[in-house]
């Protein structure tokens, strides 16, 4: 199996009395995107967190490159980027400082790369502002800059276009398209359609 493949087999996840994931399975190869849909509470976020190794399923297996991710969870987690509902940003740091500390724990970043990434998502104008003073959409753009800077093969995105205007949603589409073009994979949980730029995607609908 090539390294860039994600296979999920018969995932079952319980939260107390609630059977959140009921035998979820799919396979994703290099350059492919999976769109996960479902009503509120259907388990979209739980699926992404389980894929990321943040939640432990009662049954089933997640394989990365044909190997069970639990065999070397840290290495697998180093190969993925997870963007949840809330951007993982510190209110009392500037946008640039946030990226420096967030992505800096993964790889070395030059100031120029950081600047380019912030410009790429239209965040250069507020790069030096404290995150607490940014709007929800601006914070999301900073988080997208971080996502792009991770340069990892697997993206797990939970409502990536939340709080973004039309331009921002197109930006999300182009970022995902670039990720797929370089052979990466993306799993995106969304309520609505993914931006057209993403192209053809596989679909998985979860039911509550």
């Amino acid at each position, binding site marked *: 199996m090539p390294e860039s493949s994600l296979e999920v087999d018969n995932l079952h996840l319980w939260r107390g009395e609630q059977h959140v994931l009921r035998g979820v399975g799919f396979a994703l190869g290099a350059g492919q995107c999976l769109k996960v849909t479902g009503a509120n509470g259907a388990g979209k976020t739980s699926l992404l967190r389980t894929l990321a190794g943040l939640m432990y399923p009662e049954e089933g297996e997640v394989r990365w490159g044909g190997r069970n991710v639990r065999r070397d969870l840290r290495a697998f*987690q*180093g190969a993925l980027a*997870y963007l949840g509902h809330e951007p993982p940003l510190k209110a*009392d740091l500037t946008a640039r400082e946030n990226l420096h500390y967030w992505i800096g724990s993964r*790889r070395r970043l030059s100031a120029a790369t950081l600047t380019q990434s912030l410009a790429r998502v239209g965040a250069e104008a507020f790069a030096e502002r404290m995150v607490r003073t940014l709007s929800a959409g601006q914070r999301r753009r900073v988080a997208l800059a971080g996502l792009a800077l991770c340069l990892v093969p697997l993206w797990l995105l939970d409502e990536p276009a939340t709080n973004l205007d039309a331009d921002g949603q*197109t930006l999300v589409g182009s970022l995902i398209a670039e990720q797929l073009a370089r052979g990466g994979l993306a799993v995106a949980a969304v309520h609505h359609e993914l931006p057209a730029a993403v192209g053809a995607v596989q679909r998985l609908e979860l039911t509550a």
Partner: protein
Amino acid sequence: MSVRLVQPAVAVPALNEYAAAGAPVGALEAAALALRRDLKLAFRKPAQLVQPLAFFALVTMLFPLAISPELAQLRQVAPGALWAAALLASLLAFEFLFRDDALDGTLEQYVLSGQSLTALLFAKTLAHWLLTGVPLACMTPFAALSLGAPTSALPGISAAVVLGSITLSLIGSIGAGITLGIKRSSALLSLLTLPLSLPVLIFGARATQLAIAGGALVAPLELLAALAVLGVTLAPLAAAAAVRISLE
């Protein structure tokens, strides 16, 4: 705000270039970054720093008012008063150890960074000790003087507080990790960490007592150092396991 949808400024790497895209950082480097980040954040929110210290100062100042200004009498209660106040002040600070990072998703990103969570949490605990334990140790001589301790006892008392506060921060990291997902967890955090902190309280108070009496305090200091070494060895592992479970 208009978005410029331009071609990426850097060439998009192919899949086999991911590893070469930027030199990965080692665990030590990532931990050093986490330490610097926490120190920077703390100095931008000084209120959280001052709170435990103000509490410590207030409690130790209350004893002369409540008991008696008689120095001989104060000297007798000084060891217990100092260490009880230090322990309670530390408890106040434990609450902030991981809480903000859990709320804003930073802890999740630490788990997903591919780095050793143990090393990252140890760095956070070290930052916590530098920001609460060290200032506490700096304040202790003044508090000890107000409780009638002779100046000759101050180096010994400070050394005991430095060693004891290391262990207290490490114990706090375990408690903070376990109670991470629990709302209004202050009481539970105290219940969990206070019993574990008792050896520090006992040996610390004994060292302070001996320092005030002019006795040899090597034995309790060695025991405090041993506890600190044990804490440094085991607590970060326990804290990392607790955080992983709490984040689930």
